[in-house]
């Protein structure tokens, strides 16, 4: 015991290690400041453009497909189902290759960004449509019957009565898909869109700083996803209605 407590701690060695790490970090500051972060920032802007432009179209198209599947006449139903089978079944990577490398051979040139955007919208909408379909089908039949009994058309009943409730039920799924979208937007790199991951890859290879570049990218994605998650919680709370969504809503006085 005494021996142990009296053993001198090799303070020099430990502080030497920290000193070394600190020195190496300080020596890297110019790299972070002048090269890595600006590149990642530009990449981030592209990623955000992709995500922000994909999300609304992916959502609306998904809703259209879901409503068609649940309430459409037979041919429309089949068409919508085919859409889901195809775009959910096709790996996104393959889809992007087809759009970017395949389509030009039949004379359609979309360009990098457009190929990525179209690919994401198709994939995102196919997945969203399944979450939304689940939401639509979970609404009791009596809701639409009541709407129709008041003289609403089927479309009005679906739009004003069923969809608002279904959206609240599908929100967790749809937001999950949104978070996936943030992450799979990194696949845009394969069709030469320099987004977040692409930017990191370029810098990493050029300066041989793989750990630093990808660690930084990881943090960027983490922040994006965290902000989104908070946003979704806020949305769920804001639109919560007692008896409709899981979160307890307050009685609100509306005007």
């Amino acid at each position, binding site marked *: 015991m005494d021996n142990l407590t009296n053993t001198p701690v090799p303070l020099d060695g430990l502080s030497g290690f920290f000193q070394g790490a600190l020195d190496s970090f300080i020596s890297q500051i110019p790299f972070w400041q002048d090269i890595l972060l600006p590149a990642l920032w530009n990449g981030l802007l592209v990623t955000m453009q992709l995500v922000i432009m994909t999300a609304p179209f992916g959502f609306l198209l998904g809703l259209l497909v879901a409503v068609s599947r649940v309430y459409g006449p037979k041919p429309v139903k089949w068409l919508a189902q085919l859409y889901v089978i195809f775009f959910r079944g096709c790996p996104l990577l393959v889809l992007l290759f087809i759009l970017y490398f395949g389509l030009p051979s039949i004379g359609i040139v979309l360009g990098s960004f457009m190929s990525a955007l179209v690919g994401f919208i198709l994939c995102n909408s196919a997945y969203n449509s399944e979450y939304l379909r689940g939401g639509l089908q979970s609404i*009791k039949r*009596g*809701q639409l*019957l*009541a*709407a*129709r*009994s*008041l*003289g*609403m*058309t089927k479309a*009005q009943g679906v739009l*004003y*009565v069923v969809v*608002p*409730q279904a959206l*609240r039920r599908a929100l967790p799924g749809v937001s999950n898909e949104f978070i996936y979208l943030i992450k799979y937007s990194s696949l845009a790199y394969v069709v030469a869109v320099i987004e977040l991951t692409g930017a990191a890859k370029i810098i990493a290879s050029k300066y041989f700083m793989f750990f630093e570049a990808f660690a930084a990218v990881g943090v960027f994605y983490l922040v994006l996803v965290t902000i989104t998650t908070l946003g979704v919680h806020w949305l769920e709370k804001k639109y919560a*209605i*007692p*008896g*409709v969504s899981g979160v307890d*809503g307050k*009685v*609100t*006085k*509306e005007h």
Partner: protein
Amino acid sequence: MSDVPILKVENLCKSYGDLEVLKSVSFEVHKGEKKVFVGPSGTGKSTLLRCINQLTLPDSGFVYLNGEEIVHSGKKINAYRQKMGMVFQNFNLFDHLTAVRNVELALLKVKKMDKKSAREKAMYELEQVGMADRAYFYPAQLSGGQAQRVSIARALAMDPEVMLFDESTSALDPELKREVMEVMRTLAAQGMTCIVVTHEMKFATSFATEIYLMEKGEIVEHGPPSEIPTSPNFVKTRAFMGSYADE
């Protein structure tokens, strides 16, 4: 005036597969009349109501609203349905809307009223059923009786010419039944034409101008409330109905 019935049902038939739910049902309703349909469960009473406003499409037969045939009216059915207010057993209030917005939704979207008049009309109807103080509550925050009163207000807001009550008190506790029946009686006293499907015999006899006894998809007997409860047919059927004792 009472020559043309508000509602005339002629040889209405409906089958689900091999099961004949309605076997050529016919009757007429004139303005201000209260027709009450009683009979064992599964005899097609609810189906009859739904075939009247075409929520269920009949296989054959005709329904005339103020002399106009509505079974084959295509898109015009939406206009006809407004004139036939329906109250469901399970209320079917729109779960995502407060009481007042439940009432005003169709006013805004179907009648295309402006927001202010729709809200005024909705509040007026809620007052009529004694629910104005719960106007900003969601359906999940209302008791069954309150929810049913809101759903009556919702139907009334469309200014219907006839009200269809589909076992509108069956899902309620005895006390809550009473508050809904009270609203129905008030409506009836104001001269509203009503077609009611119910299992409450006591309510039926005191409410109806005419009681229809249904069995296996057919009207087996009908007459004034003074006669039906003592008719041999009813006494015979009564045994199968079981829960006809009112509270």
